[in-house]
């Protein structure tokens, strides 16, 4: 009988405690700076273009193969680059939010955003193009992880293959 009374005591004392429920749809979800939601592309304000150079390291290392990048030749005068990212597609329906794309990116151009509420009945709408990815990452910065050159940070991970320079890109970007 003592054990049963102890159970009663426990449920009584727990019913005196405040509920732990989070009112999620009515209050914003609690996210931490590192929370991994949809990946987004960061914007380089200096050149008014995405940071991404199109080296395809993320597309190669993605375990789900959910990233597609294509390049176009560039002849403008904002930067000295010869090519620019033409199309950048990311299929959120495939993405497993592992964050490897962020780890392998040599230019810190992609970042996991806390954005997670984007479910849809249309699978195709889960494929985000460049504009949408930039939109998601708006306001994000790389303050959440160790900056590449800070003490304790490892050398940036490279792709499995020899880190060949991305096709015809030069060091004129951020």
């Amino acid at each position, binding site marked *: *009988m*003592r*054990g*049963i009374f*102890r*159970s009663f*005591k*426990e*449920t009584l*004392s*727990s019913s005196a405690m405040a509920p*732990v429920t989070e009112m999620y749809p009515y209050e914003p979800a*609690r*996210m*931490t*700076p*590192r*929370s*991994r939601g949809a990946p987004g592309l960061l914007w380089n304000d200096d050149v008014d273009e995405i940071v991404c150079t199109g080296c395809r390291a993320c597309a190669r*290392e993605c*375990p789900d193969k959910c990233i597609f990048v294509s390049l176009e030749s560039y002849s403008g005068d904002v930067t000295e680059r010869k090519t620019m990212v033409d199309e950048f597609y990311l299929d959120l329906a495939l993405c*497993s*939010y*592992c*964050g*490897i794309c962020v*780890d*392998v990116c040599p230019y810190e151009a992609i970042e*996991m955003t806390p954005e997670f509420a984007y479910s849809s009945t249309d699978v195709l709408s889960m494929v985000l193009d460049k504009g949408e990815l930039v939109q998601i990452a708006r306001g994000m910065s790389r303050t959440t*992880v*160790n900056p590449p050159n800070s003490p*304790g*940070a*490892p*050398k940036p*991970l*490279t792709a*499995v293959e*020899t*880190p060949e320079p991305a096709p015809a890109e030069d060091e004129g970007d951020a």
Partner: protein
Amino acid sequence: MAEATSGRSDQNAEFMEINMGPQHPSTHGVCRLELAVDGEVVLSCRPEIGYLHRGVEKIAENLTVIQLPVITDRADYLSALNTELGVVLAAEQLYEVAVPERGEYIRVIMAELNRIANHMMFYGALGTDAGFSSPFIFGWWNREIIHDVFEEVTGARMLHNYIALGGVKQDVPPNFKDSVKKILPRLADGLDRCHGLLTDNEIFVARTKGLNPLTPEEALRLGITGPSLRATGLARDLRRLAPYSIYDRFEFEVPVGTVGDVHDRYMMRLLEMRESLRIIEQALEGMPDGEYRGEIPRRLRYPVGEAYSRTESPRGELGIYIVGNGQNTAHRVKIRAPAFVHVSAMEELLKGTYIADAVLIFASMDIVLGEADR
């Protein structure tokens, strides 16, 4: 009753065949137990798995070592960090990578936190199978506390992909020590509440004490490992016997049971959580500053050779076997999943029990079907 589960119709037989699962609420996922019952007594049981088979091992053969934890996380989703630790330890043997001190400490803290989270889930599941929903929620408050810390550190709540070759992926946030220190008393308090709700409850004791006792010999013969084996009185904990990572530096007890019944198995988990709290406290004290990830080779091709790591996952002995052949992807990845062995032990364990007890015995082995099916 060998013919009981031979697949023929039970129309004119002395027994009734019942499919427990794959949608049954107390098969913890999608396991199916083919029970032949005579009234309430289980005559024979045939566990059927594979409903959650995703081919984790085969997929892992097509992944690089960096991508490997992504898929092994999905095997044992309730203690993903422990699985990651096993995988990465095997990979580190292969690559001969050294791990800096801080990395080791972070790994241990995270793995032990995950052990507590997993055992809290066990507590809830066993309590729910015993007949009421409160233990489930009691366990989940504590699990939520841990998951909040996980999200702060790794960015994910369950499938972390955090422990990586050479250490961990990111350093812990600056307030990590404080936030873990803050949750430790809360977890201890939550553990006390869990004890109070269920441990001494006479109905629960009457249900579980003396139910399905196992001797160490039987348990070893069935391949049972982990807390369920220690419940039989055999103090076989790999953290103590074959210390991996830095577990040899911490002071902790290996709780052992006396009779190996369901109540002992339950108590092992709850006592282990206390020990995990102790380990975390010590690890927080000893955690040095410095690098959190060691030098890793630039070219991450698998060296030719093989490596096997065995770790004490919350469920039992987790073995990871990797064969490298000089390619980007491994030649073979094999997971020795404790849950798989435990499911196969059900055939013997459930024989002659009541249906109601069968549910409890199944729960007491702490089975995660993601790991069993892989």
